[in-house]
């Protein structure tokens, strides 16, 4: 069975949102105290994730999404450039 554009999009979304959840709610809140046993430089790891790391990951997640979706757009809608630029108003 071949996956449609929308199905692949949903798979990408679920995967990236899982990372989004783990780096913020996971490392930053739920497991934050356990991670605090480890240190990078002067930062306790859990503290670092809650005030720095989660934000860096958020940026990364969006750019990975941009890359993957641009590829996917090209694969499924090679000639869609025109349809995007013409607005229906």
């Amino acid at each position, binding site marked *: 069975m071949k996956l449609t554009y929308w199905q692949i999009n949903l798979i990408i979304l679920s995967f990236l949102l899982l990372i989004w959840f783990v780096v913020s709610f996971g490392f930053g809140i*739920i497991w934050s105290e356990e991670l605090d046993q480890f240190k990078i430089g*002067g*930062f306790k790891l859990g503290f670092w994730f809650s005030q720095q790391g989660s934000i860096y990951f958020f940026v990364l*997640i*969006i750019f990975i999404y*941009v890359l993957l979706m*641009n590829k996917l757009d090209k694969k499924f809608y090679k000639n869609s450039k025109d349809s*995007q630029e013409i*607005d229906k108003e």
Partner: protein
Amino acid sequence: MSLQALTYLFVGISFTIYIGIAIWSRAQSTNDFYIAGKGVSPLANGMATAADWMSAASFISMAGLIAFLGKDGSVYLMGWTGGYVLLALLLAPYLRKFGKYTVPDFIGTRYYSKAARLVAIICLIFISFTYVAGQMRGVGIVFSRFLEVDINTGVIIGMCIVFFYAVLGGMKGITYTQVAQYCVLIFAYLVPAIFISLMITNNPIPQLGFGDKVIGSSTYLLDKLDQVSIDLGFNAYTEYSKSSIDIFFITAALMFGTAGLPHVIVRFFTVPKVSDARKSAGYALVFIALLYTTAPAVATFAKINFINSVQEVEYKQAPNWFKNWEDIGLIAWKDKNNDGIINYSKGNALEGVKPKYLDDKEGDYGERITTNSPDFSNSNEIYIDNDIMVLANPEIAQLPNWVIALVAAGALAAALSTAAGLLLVISASISHDLMKKILMPKITEKQELFFARCAAAAAIIIAGLFGIYPPGFVAQVVAFAFGLAASTIFPALFLGIFYKRLNKEGAIAGMISGLIATSSYITYFKFINPQLNVAENWLFGISPEGIGFLGMIMNFVIALIVSNFYSKPPKEIYQMIDEIRKP
């Protein structure tokens, strides 16, 4: 040059630039006025979004809040950035593909219902005015401290500037002024942060500096701050003091609320293509992250500097900034043990928390007298408003005057850019959604543009009144804005795109139940029974700040259940959703 002259110079130059841009980019049509003719490049839109998003609260208050909350303050950092992931992945590209002007526009069309549109308009106006009130307070503080004009005059000057470029330029004018404002505000935020980071840890990058060792010692700054905080009776700076469930819910409410804020969403309507909407959300978050990763560093530096410069210092010897902010009314000192020495520790210095000053007399040491009785349950003698941390930081660290003047210009840029974005959203929802789509469908484009300008002007006047007569409840209603955005607008947009079967009955029932549940919980604890607002009384231990997430879950459940009892949406809606799912 004196500090005041420098501040006038910096603020004057930046205001001239904003007005120049407004004249250059006047709006000609409703398309220009609402969504800048869809001609904004993703990079410029990213900067504009960042300026739009980073308000007086982000610029002035956030680092101060974190300084006092320690790790608990992380909810703002994660909450106000994580929402952009949701925006970029779940909303922005599809709403851009939909290709209309406003958020109620999408909700009204997708749920084929004027009632749904009306509910969305009500939520939007409430959220936006809540927000604007906060901006005006920020403008007032900056003007009164740095330009030494009356707060009211300051607010009126700010209003005139916003009036000029929002009413004239619409979204197009606002977008390009926001790009300029972003540059001013980020420069103003980073310069003092870098200076202070160098002074304390000799590391030029604040993001790394606050995890570094204090100059001339082998202790890490954060370890030292933990120790000092514990010694003064506070919690360790790098540990949570609130319960995990509350931290979780507040973060979630802020994230989903961010993704549902109309003035942010509408920015993604202005780019040329769907792929640009995704890219521009990424750029926006980079620009936002630059400030948001600096803020916790500023918070750490400010806290340690603050403690070092006032703790156990004689009041007569207290630094100038201490007395300046005392004059504005944002610091107060109550000498509980009559020793003339400032003592800072955990707890409230004054009964009733906020100081009430007695103006015709000075205290024994020349301090302003407060009529509040001292709170003898602790030994803390200082009242300090969180808001002054960023503004006072350069003074506390004894940086040159031009840095202080720069911070004043940056704070004004942050407040004005957000105010303008909000006013535009309010005016578009009134002229486009209320007038054109519900009340007077026959008006021409020219008339609609005229109504849009009138609505923007009216909104500015109301916002100005908020600034001159600040309602005492601004801080409390911020929870409201995010809670409502999370529990009403986000679910309606998300389900509208990802669940075709949702009909108008389901969507309206969901929005109304989210609205009622969230607002009654917040109203109960914040306004009706504020004395009951403690963890023991909260539902599942969730504070009013985090209740929006529970309201959102309720919205989802009720929308899905109700939807199943009524017929499917019409065929055209299915086609419309298929269409917006394509790039």
